[in-house]
């Protein structure tokens, strides 16, 4: 096949602007945004209640805003872990099949653009909408902290908070790509939404249990380990590897590394490896970033791979009704 002429990105800017405007103006995004604000407000409120008593002792007070949880409410991070996929799926589950069902797809593709431009513009438009929503939330939480805690955040806290924001957006990108893939695969918007939500439930609710089951089956504990109720290291290793297939795990681990500066390792650690470590002292930001780097790259790579699959399927699709 000869090389095709012209840029694959012609028109993607136009698609991006339209999608971005649609998302920001659309009722769907507002509904989801309010859902997060209401759930998040509860989490942050209880966190503030707890933190007020320990204002003087914690050097990373503002980060606690995101992670502090008090029963029965989950922490703000956990709320996001659960709801970011919902926003992303809500934005993209009908992005391609919607155009098809509105019968606008063939009209768009009859314009001098490649299909790449349409898909890329839609993805970036959705990602930008997620970024705006998350950044707004982030500002709200920080502002609430400023008002109620009465101390300004340190430079490192702001930087760590921003790193957390980037990770959250990458996590949103993965689910956006999942939803987009579903919207390419299924012609009906309802089926596409169902498939994406089903996958989300599978990954966030069922997967941890499935992983535990598989790893215990593959590497059952030996008699001695049972006797001392010691876990089998092989089993834990497998469990961790499998659970990292879930974007939710990657998000959770990287957030842990960034928002809890004392985190030194995200995997199995033997006592011998901790020799000389000063427990409980925070790592510098650069070291924390290094620690979560594989997780973050994993998230971004996942989003790209899913996008590429959606792209390949879309290229081969017939546009006729």
């Amino acid at each position: 096949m000869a090389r095709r002429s012209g840029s694959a990105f012609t028109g993607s800017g136009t698609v991006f602007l339209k999608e971005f405007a649609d998302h920001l103006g659309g009722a769907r995004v507002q509904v989801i945004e309010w859902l997060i604000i209401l759930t998040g407000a509860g989490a942050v409120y209880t966190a503030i209640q707890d933190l007020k008593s320990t204002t003087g002792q914690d050097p990373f007070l503002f980060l606690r805003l995101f992670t502090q949880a008090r029963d029965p409410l989950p922490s703000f991070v956990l709320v996001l872990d659960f709801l970011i996929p919902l926003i992303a799926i809500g934005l993209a589950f009908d992005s391609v099949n919607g155009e098809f069902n509105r019968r606008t797809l063939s009209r768009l593709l009859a314009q001098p653009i490649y299909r790449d431009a349409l898909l890329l513009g839609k993805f970036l438009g959705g990602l930008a909408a997620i970024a705006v929503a998350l950044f707004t939330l982030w500002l709200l939480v920080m502002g609430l902290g400023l008002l109620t805690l009465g101390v300004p955040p340190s430079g490192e806290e702001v930087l760590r908070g921003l790193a957390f924001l980037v990770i959250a957006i990458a996590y949103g990108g993965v689910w956006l790509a999942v939803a987009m893939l579903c919207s390419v695969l299924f012609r009906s918007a309802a089926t596409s939404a169902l498939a994406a939500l089903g996958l989300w439930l599978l990954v966030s609710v069922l997967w941890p249990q499935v992983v535990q089951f598989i790893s215990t089956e593959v590497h059952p504990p030996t008699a001695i380990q049972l006797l001392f109720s010691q876990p089998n290291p092989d089993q834990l290793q497998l469990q961790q590897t499998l659970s990292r297939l879930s974007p939710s795990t990657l998000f959770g681990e990287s957030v842990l590394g960034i928002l809890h500066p004392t985190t030194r390792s995200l995997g199995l650690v033997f006592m011998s490896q901790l020799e000389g470590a000063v427990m409980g002292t925070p790592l510098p930001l650069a070291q924390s970033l290094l620690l979560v780097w594989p997780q973050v790259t994993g998230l971004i790579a996942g989003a790209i791979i899913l996008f590429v699959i959606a792209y390949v399927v879309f290229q081969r699709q017939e546009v006729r009704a």
Partner: protein
Amino acid sequence: MNDLVINATGLRKRYGSVAAVDGIDLAIRRGEIFGLLGPNGAGKTTTLLMLLGLTEVSEGTIEVGGFDPAHDPLEVKRRIGYLPDSVGFYDNLTAKQNLRYTGRLAGFPRAQLDKRIAEGLDRVGLADVGDHRVGTYSRGMKQRLGLAEVLMKGAEVAILDEPTSGLDPEATFELLEMIRTMKADGTAVLISSHLLDRVQAVCDRVALFNAGKIVLQGTVPELAQRVLGGGYIYEVEADGGEIEHLLAAVPGARQVTRTFLGFRILADRDIRGDLARAVVASGAALLKLADQEPSLDTVYRHYFESHPHGLESHAHGTA
């Protein structure tokens, strides 16, 4: 050959073992209105999509304005305005916003775009409602808006897929009038349709599709000559007397069929005088003797009556 805007030869499209389009040749000249006719599933839309480069060609070559849709899809799409079958728009946007979106995708600079949109809307009579949401539009208005998009693009070729389907007679008439004006701009227009008599009124040439092949191609009188065997059709109504055998006996009459009120006579030359004399001589009162334009409808029905299974026994590949 330089005035050809579309030149397709040996075009084939296979879905698995089924050939949706099975070796067709098309040559469309600048400023020509060309009709693609045929039953549903005959391969008309697939052919149009291949010309646009929206469907891959299994075999054959296409040139649109000198470009191959497979290698220079953007150049080809720049030259073609497309109105898809049952066109859709973003209902929550106004007509102008909808056109602005596609206009930007088409790469028109902002300053020029507003002028083009205004002109397009004006030509299809939607200038007054250009700021209304498309959701409030009727079917006919949406179809016209689709045409405005094609006009806005100022393309060399306009491809209109079933532009009149689902429209009432008045709206159909208006739309076809607008299509006729495009010819004056030098735009080549391809119309696919099954509304034969309407299409006949605007088309310079037509191609009859059946089972993925073009079975007949040419001007309407040419087709009539070929399918009906004779170029002249007369209607006779008379009162009193059994005249069918008399009409059939007139030299030049090839076929006489009884219709609801009278007879239809197929002839290879002008035999009106002889027909009138025959009726009057028999003593019957001649009520009507009319010259009938050979209609595409008759050609179409006649063709499919004699070729029910899509057999291309004669006239295949004629151009």
